[in-house]
């Protein structure tokens, strides 16, 4: 509060002033601090709010007339009482008083000129009476003067900053996923503006204004607001006890409003679950130019692939939807890449081999798709990083376990049930665990043993189970490590009462079929960044696998293997133009096997292999070189040694069978040279090319080099690949990739045919190594990257696959030949958390060999066909539309999603041929097509 002396405007006052005053009025306590009197003069407003005459003029006037030499100055200011109730009620203002100041500077009398409130007037009077002034002087003597004084009662002067304490806090989590929502605006609207129950020491608006200045909250348009931190936490300090409306606002979430009652003393804690506007799995959408090094690589995110109809959400099978991959057989898991058989390509997880990619029955991949980050598919032209394959490479990259919170799901489908959990253990360590069990066998067991005749029964189900355990350790910012354990078991049993097939010399159970396969793989990885220039990528896996089976009394086998794979790559970035990579890629398999099976001579063969060593021992180096900004070249060399082979390998990389020089003088291995290049023609356009030599162990592995069933001296199969392509980044989300390729293979094993009879050989060879293949084609892919609403692609492959036919001395179509393969694929995110996916495929019919006659076998009472020109006819084309619908129901703490997958929707209109069955003498045939198949599943995600 402060007082202000005001010069009255009445004549009497003037007279008195003229008599008594000569000094300038004291205007405020600030003036007492020594400011220039002129500057300190304020314009005074009278009761009507009009500007009064400046006192200085009057004073000068007075001075001029009265001779008042000095005005009284406050020596001692006494603050008036400001009753609490007036403060609470927000009453403030000015009391205008008239004071008689004596010659001694005391206040002899006080009267109210303009009242504020009687009580406040009284308080002011009481205080002013105690003021001490320096006396006025006129003529060199102290004189009494009368002056007016304004005493101002101001709330701002008496209101203290409220005590700061948190009395409303909470956390905001995403509905369904329970993911904390950071940077969300939390706004409070005070519904009870009087806040009568709040018992505030000051007016409500003042109070809010005060607390609006507290750290972490602010006042905006009458609302008290704050934001959540990265953990989704918010807090409000010192809120008045009243009802508030809480609004949670964010562009990615639906508006959330809730009312809360803030109490006097207790802290209110709340947890809110806000609904996202879009629950797509792929949260982070990054566009832009990622540096691509490979020529043919196609990368898919797991979130994309799980939406593709007809693939059951299986991330591994999705490569079947890529250009360059032929349509697999029904329920098949084969991956025919650029016209080459399935065994010409290799699968890796994090750079190391997996012993088995799919379960044997059910065609489900063993590695859980949700544990994968990306799938890199190289249909050809891959770098020296990979060896032991002459067609393509598929590398699945596992992802790190999530560290933000414990989360997971339980999934149930027609085939199996699974559970998946991951989360943090502490700041540096997180884990991931999954398990799956198939129960189709249980259902079949139930059917055959209880519903159908008990003469046919099933042994113990399930068909399969698998598991994955993983731990991630963030050692420090430059080192990350993980350890994972992957395992699986497939088993099958079928028995038929009264059946007796085969020989007890092969197996006692001549009435049953059984099979089991189990493996466990331990994988460890360490990624290191060393002083900014060096990087090291280390992976090691060890696998133990056992399998066995018996086909009634007809065949029996048991085997076990130890597989270890070490991959280490060191990268050195010499400059921004040169990076050197060098690595070891060593895969060794120690195999024991017992196989008991009758041969074509009706002779039971008991083959035992002990400690047979297979593998690929490879070393490589390549250089990533940018001679100019727009050009990238990656030349590389690699050598692969095959310990199971015994032949003279090449000395120089073989791009064809060099006739002039004798290249076959080395160890049982093959050197390779590969180079790929990318040139940015202009912004968004990249031309690319790759040339390389490749090799692999002759396939099928083990069989063709077996001492009894094969030829141990077969050489490695070799190949040369040539790729030219163009990439056009049409926009951030649209791209077009075109590639042409030409692949040659030679030293391909082929089984003995009558034309191979060599009279000079006492024992004819079972396999020969003079097989040859060639494939060539064009691949196009127009791809729409994943956005909030859509992703998809159109892929088209025009290709030809041929093999050398010795009898005809020319290349003929291979059975993998597929001239046209068109796929249109897309997934749309609709309203109400619905996703609709579709996949339309058109594929040329499979090559078939016409039957030109029959031969009846009197011994087996069967008729076998006489074939004409190999693969000279073709089945009708394949046309299929698959649809998939995914629906999410978002609950507070979990999400329920379910899907329905319908394959072959066009069946009523067009029936794509899958098989051809003939009658006994091949005079009639039937084309069999797959009927529409529906599958569905449910998932609860927490």
């Amino acid at each position, binding site marked *: 509060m402060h007082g202000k002396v005001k010069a009255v405007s009445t004549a009497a006052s003037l007279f008195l002033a003229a008599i008594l005053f000569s000094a300038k009025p004291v205007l405020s306590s600030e003036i007492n601090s020594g400011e220039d009197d002129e500057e300190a003069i304020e314009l005074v407003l009278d009761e009507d709010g009009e500007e009064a005459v400046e006192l200085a003029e009057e004073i000068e006037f007075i001075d001029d007339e009265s001779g008042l030499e000095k005005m009284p100055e406050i020596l001692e200011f006494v603050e008036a009482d400001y009753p609490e109730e007036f403060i609470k009620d927000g009453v403030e203002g000015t009391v205008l008083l008239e004071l008689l100041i004596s010659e001694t500077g005391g206040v002899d009398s006080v009267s109210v000129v303009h009242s504020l409130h009687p009580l406040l007037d009284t308080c002011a009077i009481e205080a002013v009476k105690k003021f001490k002034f320096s006396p006025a002087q006129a003529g060199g003597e102290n004189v009494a003067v009368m002056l007016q004084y304004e005493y101002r009662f101001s709330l701002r002067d008496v209101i203290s900053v409220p005590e700061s304490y948190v009395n409303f806090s909470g956390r905001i989590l995403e509905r369904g996923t329970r993911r904390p929502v950071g940077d969300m605006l939390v706004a409070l609207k005070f519904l009870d503006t009087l806040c009568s129950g709040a018992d505030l020491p000051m007016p409500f608006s003042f109070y809010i204004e005060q607390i609006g200045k507290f750290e972490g909250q602010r006042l905006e348009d009458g609302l008290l607001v704050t934001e959540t931190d990265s953990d989704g936490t918010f807090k409000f300090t010192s809120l008045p006890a009243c009802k508030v409306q809480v609004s949670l606002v964010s562009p990615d979430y639906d508006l959330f409003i809730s009312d809360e009652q803030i109490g006097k003393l207790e802290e209110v804690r709340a947890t809110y679950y806000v609904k996202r506007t879009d629950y797509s799995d792929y949260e982070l959408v990054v566009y832009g130019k990622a540096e691509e090094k490979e020529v043919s690589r196609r990368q898919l995110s797991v979130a994309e692939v799980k939406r593709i109809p007809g693939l059951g959400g299986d991330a591994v099978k999705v490569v079947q939807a890529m250009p360059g991959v032929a349509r697999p057989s029904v329920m098949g898991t084969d991956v025919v890449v650029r016209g080459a058989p399935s065994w010409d390509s290799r699968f890796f997880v994090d750079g190391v081999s997996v012993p088995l990619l799919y379960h044997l029955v059910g065609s489900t991949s063993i590695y859980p798709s949700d544990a994968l980050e990306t799938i890199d598919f190289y249909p050809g032209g891959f770098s020296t990083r990979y060896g032991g394959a002459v067609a393509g490479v598929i590398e699945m990259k596992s992802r790190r376990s999530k560290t933000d919170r414990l989360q997971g799901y339980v999934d149930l489908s027609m085939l199996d049930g699974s559970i998946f959990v991951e989360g943090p253990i502490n700041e540096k360590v997180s884990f991931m665990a999954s398990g799956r069990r198939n129960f189709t066998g249980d259902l079949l067991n139930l059917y055959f043993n209880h519903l159908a005749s008990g003469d046919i029964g099933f042994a113990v189900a399930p068909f399969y189970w698998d598991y994955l355990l993983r731990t991630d350790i963030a050692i420090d910012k430059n080192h990350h490590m993980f350890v994972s354990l992957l395992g699986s078991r497939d088993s*099958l049993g079928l028995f038929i009462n009264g059946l007796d097939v085969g*020989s007890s010399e092969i197996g006692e159970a001549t009435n049953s079929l059984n099979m089991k396969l189990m493996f466990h793989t331990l994988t460890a990885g360490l990624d290191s960044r060393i002083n900014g220039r060096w990087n090291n990528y280390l992976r090691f896996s060890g696998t133990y696998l056992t399998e066995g089976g018996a086909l009634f009394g007809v065949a029996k086998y048991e085997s076990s293997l130890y597989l270890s794979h070490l991959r280490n790559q060191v990268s050195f970035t010499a400059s921004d133009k040169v990076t050197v990579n060098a690595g070891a890629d060593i895969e060794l398999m120690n195999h024991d096997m017992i196989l008991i099976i009758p041969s074509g001579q009706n002779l039971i063969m008991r083959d035992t292999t002990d400690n047979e060593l297979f593998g690929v021992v490879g070393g490589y180096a390549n250089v990533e070189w940018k001679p100019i900004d727009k050009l990238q070249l990656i030349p590389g060399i690699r050598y692969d040694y095959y310990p199971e082979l015994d032949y003279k390998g090449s000395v120089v990389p073989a791009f064809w069978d060099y006739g002039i020089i004798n290249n076959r003088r080395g160890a049982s291995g093959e050197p390779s040279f590969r180079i790929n290049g990318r040139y940015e023609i202009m912004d968004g356009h990249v031309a690319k090319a790759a040339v390389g030599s490749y090799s692999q162990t002759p396939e099928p592995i083990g069989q063709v080099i077996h001492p009894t*069933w094969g030829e141990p001296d077969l050489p490695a199969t070799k190949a040369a690949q040539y790729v030219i392509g163009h990439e056009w980044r049409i926009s951030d989300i649209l791209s077009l990739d075109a590639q042409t390729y030409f692949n040659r293979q030679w030293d391909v094993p082929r089984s003995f045919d009558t034309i191979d009879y060599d009279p000079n050989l006492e024992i004819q060879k*079972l396999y020969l190594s003079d097989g040859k293949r060639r494939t060539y084609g064009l691949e196009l892919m127009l791809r729409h990257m994943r956005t909030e609403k859509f992703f998809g692609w159109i892929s088209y492959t025009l290709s030809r696959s041929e093999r050398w036919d010795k009898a005809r001395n020319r290349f003929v179509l291979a059975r993998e030949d597929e001239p046209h393969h068109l796929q249109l694929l897309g997934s749309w995110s609709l309203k109400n958390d619905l996703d609709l996916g579709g996949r339309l495929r058109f594929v040329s019919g499979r090559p078939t060999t016409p039957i030109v006659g029959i031969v009846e076998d*009197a011994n087996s009472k069967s008729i076998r066909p006489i074939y004409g020109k190999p693969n000279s006819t073709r089945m009708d084309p394949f046309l299929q539309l698959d649809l998939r619908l995914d629906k999410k129901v978002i609950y507070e703490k979990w999400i329920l999603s379910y899907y329905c997958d319908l394959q072959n929707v066009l069946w009523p209109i067009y029936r794509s041929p899958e098989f051809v069955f003939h009658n006994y003498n091949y005079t009639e045939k039937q084309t069999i097509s797959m009927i529409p198949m529906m599958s569905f599943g449910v998932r609860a995600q927490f």
Partner: protein
Amino acid sequence: MRYIIAGITAASFMIISCEDFSASYQRVDAGAFRLLNIQYYPAEAAPGDIVTLTAVFAGKEIDLEKLIDWRVSYNMLVDHYGTLTAVDDKPLEYHEIQTSFFSGNTQAVNVRFKIPEDCVRRSGSIPNNWADLVPSYVKSSIPQELLSMTKDEMVDLIEAYDRYLKGPHDNFTLDRPMSMIKAASNEWQKPQYSEELHSCLNTILQFFTVPIRISANVKGEHTIQSTYSVRYNGKFYSLDINYNNNPDIGFVRVYKVKGKNQLGFDESDPFVDFFGYWPAIIEVEDGYTYIAEAIVYANSIDYSVTLGGVTVEEEYRVYWQFQLDEDEIKGIPYSKYMDITSVPGQLGAGPFAWIIPPADKRITKFTLWVSVTDHVTNERLRPQGSALAEFRGYFTYK
């Protein structure tokens, strides 16, 4: 291997739409030239033996003597995968060929020919180092002395042993293991070491078994192939060596089992027997399953010692075929014909079959043929014996 099992299982459960064909293996139609069986007599022959091949046909009649071009390959190769390669293929030189009579519904032809004396010696299916054919688990049962001999030496040994057993005793020209036989040759007693030779003779002779192929190119029709095995076993019949005879089909018994699609029968179920040419009657009644069983006479069952040293009884594979009366089936769609199928769960040519009666009661008469082949697992290239029997029957309908 694992993929074979998985594939069989997967195929068993595939949901695929499929319809029946109009022509079937089991049903012999009048217009189709069908082979019912080829039987060799004897079921197995040694080099130099005379063999009579009897081929029985049904359906369309042809001039068997003029229209069949018989060919033979005495040099057949067969590898572990069963790939057969005919190194030579030439017209069959036969002693005699004549039509024969099997039944009124069939045509039959006998072909009589001689197995060349050097059939085994010249066959490319036995390498000079014959021990390469012998699996390791079998080698231990054969004296090393024999394993180190060449193919020709072994053939000489076998043929000499044959002559020895038949007498009189020649002067042997072979030194080595012939001492096994020679030791007692002068004493007119059984050779001291014959026990040793005898104990492995059964095994050895399996590696001196060669396949030959007889093919019949039927003009205007198709080619028929038959594989026959030649081995020396018949020459050592007195030594209790494996020897195969053709099976003898006794009769067919048809059980009438209550319930549809029954997989088995009880001995108490009513049945009817088909013997010889006497027609039997099957009473057709709704709600019943008709299970046929082919009975092979026990005294025709042969026993063999396998390469694993196990004595086993030969197994039979039974094939069923039938023919309906042409007049009765006129105008009736084939889907209403009678049918014969293997009983589910039997996995192939087992002794039991479902007889599915006609859906049209106008069809009553049928002729039934049962052919049986014998088999022993792990007896290398065992000659196959076979038999064919014809039965007649009627359906009556309740």
